[in-house]
């Protein structure tokens, strides 16, 4: 179920330091609840209990990349409908078309400033809610 206010973010990033600063920013600045996972396997372990409102995924990860992680999360009812946001430096037209085919709602381009990430996520969520409202109307 989609909430009006964004509360829970499932975040998957293999780099521990980046995971730490992004989680900290989202929690402290954005006041979101974050489940920070280092891999697809970790995300699959927590997703059902966490019941995320939004999925935030790094694209290039070892073993299982972001697109594959997304497809596996989508098979879970708890993450089937949550908007997905990729974090990546690969944003050429061909890449963006690929993300769109995967059903990715938006992309945060690397490098990004961790200090303004919460605002960016808030904007993306608002855009998502507006679109949902328009579709429903």
């Amino acid at each position, binding site marked *: 179920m989609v909430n009006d206010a964004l509360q829970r973010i499932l975040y998957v990033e293999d780099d521990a330091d980046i995971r730490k600063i992004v989680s900290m920013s989202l929690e402290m600045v954005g006041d979101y609840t974050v489940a920070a996972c280092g891999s697809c396997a970790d995300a699959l372990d927590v997703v059902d209990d966490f019941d995320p409102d939004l999925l935030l995924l790094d694209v290039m990860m070892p073993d299982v990349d972001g697109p594959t992680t997304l497809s596996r999360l989508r098979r879970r009812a708890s993450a089937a409908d949550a908007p997905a946001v990729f974090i990546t430096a690969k944003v050429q037209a061909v890449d963006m078309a690929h993300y769109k085919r995967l059903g990715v709602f938006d992309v945060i381009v690397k490098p990004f400033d*961790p200090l303004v990430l919460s605002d960016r996520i808030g904007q993306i969520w608002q855009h998502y809610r507006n679109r949902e409202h328009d579709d429903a109307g």
Partner: protein
Amino acid sequence: MTTPDEIVAMELARLSATFVAQLPEQVQAVEDDMTAWLDEPGDVERFEILSHRVHQLKGSGSTFGCPGVSRAARALEQSLGAFRGEIVAGRLPAPVAVESAMTELQNEARQARTRSPDPEASP
């Protein structure tokens, strides 16, 4: 009173200082992975390990205040990427461009260390 933004900024500064302090080890790890790959340039697994480490360095460099390191890592990543198809096709590359990009990464890492204050030093 310290605001959430200030707390995150302080943690970002701390992680950035740690990143710079650990750059020699990180670059050495890239060098080791490259040596392992060049010993067996047709080994896809070694190539992917090297590529991923370089990719991580690119991302960390930009997040933790070392754009020169990030740029050099990106150039190395692109040089490696040019070989991906060759390796998958079983053709062995001539890695001159990769070695040149590696040298640039080493130089950028040295410069980043020179510019940054020692995080262990007393204020």
